[in-house]
């Protein structure tokens, strides 16, 4: 057999194979596990699968699970809104300032991202320990929620600032002038020009923050005294004993991700959400 002639296209084959084996097939395995239940044969140890929806029914009929999901969504929502409220002014001020060194200031916002994420959360934990409010207050569960949300905002803020900064930078300066010439006040210019044009940045920042704040249980465990449960933690808990349920939760998250990226047009496949290609 003759080997195919070397061409640039063949270079893609190893990665295509890699993607099929370690991305596509695992996703299909998740779907398979989510829709089956397994019975282990006590003698051979082999698992026999049967198709069923019982994982879904079991999960969504459990009131404690449902309330955790609601809590988790609220935490993620509050985190995302806080990030947006802090990041938008920062990105806007930096992008529109005439400072020559604004890139340095932007770097200052990104720099903490390169410190190991668990070490960063640990630093915050030490601060909270130092500040540890009155013991009575500390024992409140709401304190745990506050700390979790604070920690998530602290950790995910750069992911919001970067896409916002890049989109606001791209807005044509003359549009502001045009708006002013046509009699638009500063407020009108902002709501009718800047805000609509920075929507893509807002969307990609929101997806970058919302998803981890539903699933990254490191922050909620370390700062919430392990009393705050988020959706990602379910998968961890099921991982020890029931993969079918775990896969089901994963599948739900998968569907949420795909819907939100599809809605926000996040499947522009060449978009680098980490935005480090500044």
């Amino acid at each position: 057999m003759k080997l195919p002639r070397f061409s640039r296209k063949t270079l893609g084959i190893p990665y295509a194979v890699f993607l099929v084996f370690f991305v596509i097939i695992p996703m299909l395995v998740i779907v398979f596990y989510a829709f089956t239940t397994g019975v282990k044969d006590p003698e051979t140890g082999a698992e026999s699968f049967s198709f069923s929806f019982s994982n879904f029914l079991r999960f969504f009929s459990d009131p404690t699970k449902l309330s955790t999901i609601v809590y988790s969504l609220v935490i993620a929502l509050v985190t995302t809104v806080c990030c947006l409220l802090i990041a938008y002014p920062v990105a806007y001020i930096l992008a529109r300032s005439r400072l020559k060194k604004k890139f340095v200031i932007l770097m200052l916002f990104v720099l903490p991202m390169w410190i190991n994420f668990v070490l960063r959360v640990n630093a915050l934990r030490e601060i909270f320990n130092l500040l540890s409010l009155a013991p009575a207050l500390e024992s409140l569960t709401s304190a745990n929620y506050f700390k979790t949300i604070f920690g998530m905002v602290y950790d995910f803020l750069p992911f919001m600032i970067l896409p916002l900064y890049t989109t606001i930078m791209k807005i044509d300066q003359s549009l502001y002038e045009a708006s002013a010439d046509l009699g638009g006040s500063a407020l009108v210019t902002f709501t009718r020009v800047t805000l609509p044009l920075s929507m893509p940045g807002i969307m990609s920042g929101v997806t970058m923050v919302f998803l981890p704040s539903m699933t990254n249980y490191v922050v909620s465990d370390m700062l919430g005294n392990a009393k705050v449960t988020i959706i990602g933690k379910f998968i961890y808990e099921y991982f020890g004993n029931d993969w079918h349920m775990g896969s089901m939760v994963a599948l739900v998250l998968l569907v949420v991700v795909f819907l939100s990226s599809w809605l926000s047009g996040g499947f522009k496949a060449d978009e680098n959400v980490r935005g480090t290609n500044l």
Partner: protein
Amino acid sequence: MKSNLLVRCLKAGFVGLILLLLYAPILLLAVYSFNSVDNIGGWGDLSLVHYQKLFGDPVILSMIGNTVLLAVVAAALSTVLGTAGALGMYYCKKRLKTTMQLMNQIPVVNAEIVTALALTITFVAVGIGKSWFTLIIGHMVICTPFVVLSVIPKLKQMDGSLYEAALDLGASPFKALMKIVLPQIIPGVISGFMLAITLSLDDYIVTVYTRPTGFETISTYVFNATMKGNAHTAKTLSSFWALTTIIFVIIVLFVVISNLAGRRNKEESR
């Protein structure tokens, strides 16, 4: 004019305040890493005791070594695979290209825990035990898509006719690729590699699910030490202050040096 000044002060104040909040925890740890007390809030003498603890603890040193080794290996493999993948993807037919780009995007948008669970179940289902192999595959799955995303824009900027010219002048396709294409996309390859390193260094979730037993990285070790501290880890908590400070200083130095080098390059090319 006066209100203008006020607005500028407010703007600067806001940005400064957020920066202060971002850096306060890290700077506090940095200050305390040079103090002799074991818990933040007290105040003792200037001392390097936490650094001694850090460098005197073989368990901690080995987990730092693990983290760095894993990051370098995973990032290097991801960079090779991703760069080749980006080239192949860029030059193939439209439909195949879109499919590849969509597949590439899955680990990027997906929650890390879903990626981790899916991989682990698959490994167990086909009977691959957790080992260095599974760990590195796990890290490659999260790193490689970002390498591809860093390289593709450089390919788009490149002048395609140079490659054709090299072929016309008698270069083999492989030689043309190495001598003509690679030098032009190398900035993207390097930034992809750096991104892969930082993603791997930072990772907790994929590591926890795919690692061989007993393997610890900075992320897993610090998480365990703070969450379910035993006698050994409780004593090491304050050495993390020293570790955080060292990493912080390395990063600051790296950023400053690369900025200075970048500026010099720009001036030379002028």
